[in-house]
């Protein structure tokens, strides 16, 4: 964020008056932004906190103030804890696997080889594919009898589970799709960061007799740390909110095995019309994401200040 502050330009602007500055003109330029973000971001964020203190079905003219009862109910609910556990497993799984694979592909691509552009497109396509279509296709790939996955396993003499309807495998299957959709994004960001590392570092290390692994371990990884950090935080924030894939592939089942918080909230709010309770769920998600964001700020202040 350095260097973005405006320099003081000579007093040309002063004809608009000192205190107001360019407010009248700025108001026109900012009106749509303020109106839309105010109505559909700021106000809802506060209002859902308020709603979480009520019991309300969204239709009846009266709503009952219940204080923190929704939160108490949440903490006492086995469904909620299951949902939280599933969400953390999904987020952790997708984040770590996609990070490692994205880095691996980026390192392989970060050398003069033919077909680099083609590889990049192939790895990136899943990122921009609609999640609903991805879910539909992967559901077919995971089909117990006709799916490619189990046919492939059968080809090497293994019998695959009935992935999406097996409580112990459904989450793993959804994680696979989440990873598939994330690797390309990580790869692109890592590749840009790798290309920013000066060749001279590696040349100096080679002179000192460092092998490829040592170079990777002592030059590449440390210099990529800020990028890794950025990717972990954004991946976690995205994964905590996963909804589409679960809606299409498993509807939260089997037996709550993929009942992530996003889906849990949707069920409570829009299937059972428990708007107050669903708002409490939303605020738990908010807290989770906020904690990750705060951790990011804390840690970046401590270390990689040199980046920005």
């Amino acid at each position: 964020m350095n260097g973005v502050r405006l320099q003081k330009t000579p007093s040309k602007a002063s004809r608009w008056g000192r205190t107001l500055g360019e407010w009248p003109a700025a108001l026109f330029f900012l009106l749509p932004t303020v109106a839309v973000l105010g109505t559909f971001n700021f106000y809802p964020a506060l209002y859902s906190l308020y709603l979480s203190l009520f019991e309300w079905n969204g239709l009846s003219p009266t709503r009952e103030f219940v204080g923190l009862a929704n939160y108490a109910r949440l903490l006492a609910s086995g469904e909620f804890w299951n949902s939280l556990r599933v969400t953390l497993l999904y987020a952790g799984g997708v984040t770590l696997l996609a990070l490692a694979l994205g880095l691996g592909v980026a390192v392989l691509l970060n050398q003069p080889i033919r077909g680099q552009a083609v590889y990049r497109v192939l790895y990136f396509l899943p990122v921009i594919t609609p999640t609903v279509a991805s879910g539909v296709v992967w559901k077919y790939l995971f089909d117990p009898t006709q799916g490619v996955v189990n046919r492939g396993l059968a080809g090497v003499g293994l019998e695959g589970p009935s992935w999406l309807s097996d409580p112990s495998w459904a989450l793993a299957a959804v994680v696979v799709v989440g990873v598939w959709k994330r690797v390309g994004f990580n790869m692109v960001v890592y590749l840009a960061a790798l290309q920013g590392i000066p060749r001279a570092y590696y040349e100096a290390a080679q002179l000192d007799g460092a092998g490829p692994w040592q170079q990777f371990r002592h030059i590449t990884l440390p210099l990529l740390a800020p990028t890794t950090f950025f990717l972990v935080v954004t991946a976690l924030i995205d994964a905590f909110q996963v909804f589409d894939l679960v809606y299409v592939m498993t509807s939260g089942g089997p037996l709550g095995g993929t009942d992530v918080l996003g889906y849990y909230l949707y069920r409570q709010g829009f299937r059972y019309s428990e708007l107050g309770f669903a708002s409490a769920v939303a605020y738990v998600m908010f807290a989770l994401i906020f904690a990750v964001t705060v951790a990011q700020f804390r840690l970046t202040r401590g270390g990689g200040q040199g980046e920005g």
Partner: protein
Amino acid sequence: MKARALRTALVHLLLAGGAFLSAMPFLWMLTTALKPESALYQPPLLFPAHFQWENFAKAWQAAPFPRFFLNSAVMTAGIVLAQTLFSAMAGYAFARMRFAGRDLLFFGVLGTMMIPFPVTLIPSFLVVNWLGWIDTYNALIVPRAVSAFAIFLFRQFFLSLPRELEEAALMDGAGRLTIFFRIVLPLSTPVIAASAIFSFLFAWNDFLWPLIVTNSPDMRTVQVGLAMFQGQYGVFWTLLSAAATIVTLPAVLAFLAAQRQFIAGITNTGLKE
């Protein structure tokens, strides 16, 4: 020399293996979409051996896909236009104008990116409901008419433009509006392209919000329509694959057309953090 050739071959092998896994679902989607129903139980194909183009026509008619497409097209066009114009305007105000509270407001805008969507979901739905917008294009477009991310992109771009041109015009007595539309916007095609491709993919692929604010089949978007179609045609894999292909194609084409801007947008914002 030999060791190097071997190494290159190994790198290609690894990369090609991964790329195959990455692209495989698309291949199977396509080959399945082109299979006759009778060939469904044959082993999956890597390359299409059948060309049952009728599947696309059948899927197209099995559900009101033409209507879904129209709805998605209207929604996407509306969101792309609104996000581009409004975000450019706001980005310009934040980059160039001087007014009290500017930085505070800008951080407020950035702050909205940290509010997770599920948190705003229920109240936003209530607002839209209160406005009587359920099942209308207004509900699909207006709440997403502004993008904080796009505002950030535009602001960064405008800060990188030399200000001399604008200053000369200001001296000549031109207003901010004239300067913005006549001088600044024509210089901004790269960032407009980047912002537009992000908006396009966001709008075309979006699911949860359209799912919630539309009820009637007449107002469903392609993604919601595809999810419902799957509910009805759960095991008709040829039709489902054809439908999924139709719905995916616009996103892939848009990405291929504006790949460079899209990836530059990701890496620039990703690394500036």
